[in-house]
């Protein structure tokens, strides 16, 4: 007999695990949450320092965190150590897996951009024939989005556009646009492109994480135990019933192996860790698609222009500053032909300065250029949807193990001509807009970061109605093991251009409430 059997074991403590814990415990269900890393103490673990006080003067230790472009010497300790937790990929097919194992996971550090998916994503196959449709629609998820937006205090401007569904937003007044943002807006409107404002989770106290918005309430119920430094290596299954009954985990410090028992298992470790755990456990893969369809979004395309009238400190009040957000505007109509399918959103920022990289100059000449262009720049950048392909997959690499002896992932992802065509279209569009505005193009690139950089990886345990072509049903429940749920981004069929966090939270809430009812009925 196990020492203690919980109703539900939750692996992972980020947004998805936190939401599951919140819903389940408030319905009287006892939960154990296992988190692979430690809890951060914001007072103890952070210190204000000058770059020269760091060992490498802010350069970061050479070779450390080579896949994490977001890392610098100030924040290097917040990311997962790639030597302790390796993964592999073909050098010709790079993948940037960006991980956090602290209690709260990546919810501690996300950018808080908060969007709903639209039926352009949920019904993707019907829109453009590219990829598959979800087994649910926006209407199914809308009530859950609304509740999540309430919890996360989302601000945004309602537009009534189908590709940019409105939500339960906090009313907010926006200051008047600067002349440059107004100019871009006018030029876009003339092209039939809608321009809006960023939608963002305000959270509380500047944080919109599971550790401040979800877990405290769950802990207050007395129904949640959280164990940190618990690295789960295998989900266990009762051979007689075929049901999941717990998990083996390894203490991060001592490497002592333990087993936790539960009636239901929920995986919320993040798309790739969840998939690694399922593959290492050898379960939930009768379809053969577990680990496939990995995708995220392209970031990096950008165009920077300088407003001549704003150079040399001559910008008049109201000319520069502010930003605009342009939701997907390409391929919304089947009538218009494009060189690519799907779409991208665009972010316009005004009032920035030029970078030294913009000028082939040095010394006094470079400084004079930087001074002249200070505050005169307008930039455009995008988040674009990557193609969803069976071929883009992960598998276990038994030859490489982490510091706890757990086999690592091998990631095999490649971009397609669609991504490159999309990136080119975006760069060309920005250039056209900025030139028409009368601004000087300082730089233009249609290059983008390797897959994974967006930290929006999803799709490796996709949901679907057909157990032969999907891992989960529409309730994020394993087709193979009825008491196994996956509530992180693994279940996505397509990620769209949107930050996936609101969708992950809404799906986790929906799956958790379904589980509550199924447990009440005795079906799980």
């Amino acid at each position: 007999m196990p020492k203690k059997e919980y109703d539900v074991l939750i692996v992972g403590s980020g947004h998805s695990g936190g939401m599951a814990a919140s819903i389940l415990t408030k319905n009287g269900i006892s939960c154990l949450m296992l988190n692979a890393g430690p809890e951060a103490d914001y007072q103890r673990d952070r210190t204000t320092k000058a770059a020269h006080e760091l060992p490498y003067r802010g350069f970061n230790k050479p070779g450390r965190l080579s896949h994490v472009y977001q890392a610098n010497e100030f924040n290097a300790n917040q990311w997962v150590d790639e030597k302790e937790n390796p993964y592999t990929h073909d050098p010709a097919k790079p993948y940037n897996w960006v991980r956090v194992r602290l209690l709260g996971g990546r919810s501690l550090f996300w950018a808080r951009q908060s969007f709903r998916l639209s039926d352009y994503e949920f019904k993707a196959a019907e829109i453009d024939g590219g990829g598959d449709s979800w087994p649910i629609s926006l209407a199914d998820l809308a009530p859950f989005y609304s509740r999540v937006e309430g919890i996360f205090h989302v601000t945004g401007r309602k537009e009534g556009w189908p590709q940019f569904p409105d939500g339960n937003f906090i009313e907010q007044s926006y200051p008047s646009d600067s002349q440059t943002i107004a100019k871009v807006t006018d030029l876009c409107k003339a092209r039939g492109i809608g321009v809006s404002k960023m939608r963002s989770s305000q959270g509380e106290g500047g944080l919109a994480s599971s550790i401040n918005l979800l877990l405290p309430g769950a802990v207050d119920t007395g129904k949640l135990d959280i164990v940190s430094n618990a690295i789960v290596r295998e989900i266990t299954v009762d051979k007689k019933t075929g049901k999941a009954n717990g998990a083996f985990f390894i203490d991060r410090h001592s490497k002592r192996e333990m087993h936790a028992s539960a009636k239901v298992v929920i995986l919320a470790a993040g798309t790739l860790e969840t998939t690694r755990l399922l593959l290492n456990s050898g379960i939930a893969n009768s379809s053969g698609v577990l680990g496939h369809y990995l995708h995220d979004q392209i970031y990096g395309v950008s165009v920077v222009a300088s407003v001549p009238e704003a150079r040399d400190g001559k910008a008049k009040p109201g000319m520069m500053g502010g930003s605009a957000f342009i939701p997907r505007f390409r391929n919304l109509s089947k009538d218009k032909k494009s060189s690519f399918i799907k779409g991208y959103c665009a972010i316009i920022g005004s009032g920035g300065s030029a970078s030294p990289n913009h000028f082939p100059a040095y010394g006094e000449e470079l400084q004079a250029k930087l001074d002249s262009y200070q505050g005169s720049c307008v930039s455009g950048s995008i988040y674009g949807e990557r193609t969803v392909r069976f071929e883009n997959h992960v598998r276990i690499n038994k030859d490489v193990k982490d510091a706890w002896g757990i086999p690592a992932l091998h990631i095999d992802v490649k971009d397609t001509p669609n991504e490159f065509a999309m990136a080119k279209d975006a760069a060309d569009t920005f250039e056209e807009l900025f030139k028409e505005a009368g601004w000087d193009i300082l730089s233009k690139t249609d290059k983008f970061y390797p897959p994974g950089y967006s930290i929006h990886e999803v799709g490796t345990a996709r949901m679907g109605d057909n157990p032969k072509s999907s891992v989960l049903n529409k309730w994020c429940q394993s087709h193979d093991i009825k008491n196994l749920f996956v509530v992180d981004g693994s279940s996505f069929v397509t990620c769209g251009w949107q930050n996936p966090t609101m969708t992950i939270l809404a799906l986790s809430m929906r799956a958790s409430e379904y589980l509550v009812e199924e447990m009440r009925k005795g079906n799980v």
Partner: protein
Amino acid sequence: MKRRRFLQALSTAPAVPALVQEANAQQPGRAGGGRGTGAATDIPHIPVAAPDDAADTVAKFFTPAQFATLRKLAGILVPPVKGNLGALDTDAPEFLDFLVASSPADTQTLYRSGLDGLAATARRQFSKAFADLDAKQADQILKPLLVQVPWVYDLPKDPMKHFLYQVHSDLRTATRNSPEAAKAVAASGRRSLSTTGLYWNPIDPV
């Protein structure tokens, strides 16, 4: 540290209660047991100096000729401008010697080949070492190698152009982030938030 300040700090530390010392001594296996700081409270803070305040970096990765070229480059690419310190004022070349020595092999090759390439070009064009060129001669070699880099992950394919971009960028960062620059900014009364940040300490390391 000044001896007088150290003694002043010690004099403020409370004596450890004898009873606690005795209890710890009876349990030698317990953390904090025995002599030391186990039961001490209000332990004095002993200020220490930064190494750059007390000593010089020993440059040892580059050959003397390569290092002379690097110092010449530093003076040209990042000179003192508008009251800001230049790369040579902040020992940026010495810091880069350390940084490149700690870097992966491809970075080391980029630097060594780049510095040797500049030296070879100087000999070919002007029959002297790069370090001995005047400003006009150095410009003739360097300016054709300058390129705009709109995307920092798509660097020039030409190794000399790539090197010049990299060393220029690294010299700027090493200069801006140096203790000398920080002191100069502080002395001027200006604020420089760009080189100050919230540092995450190692969090419960294994």
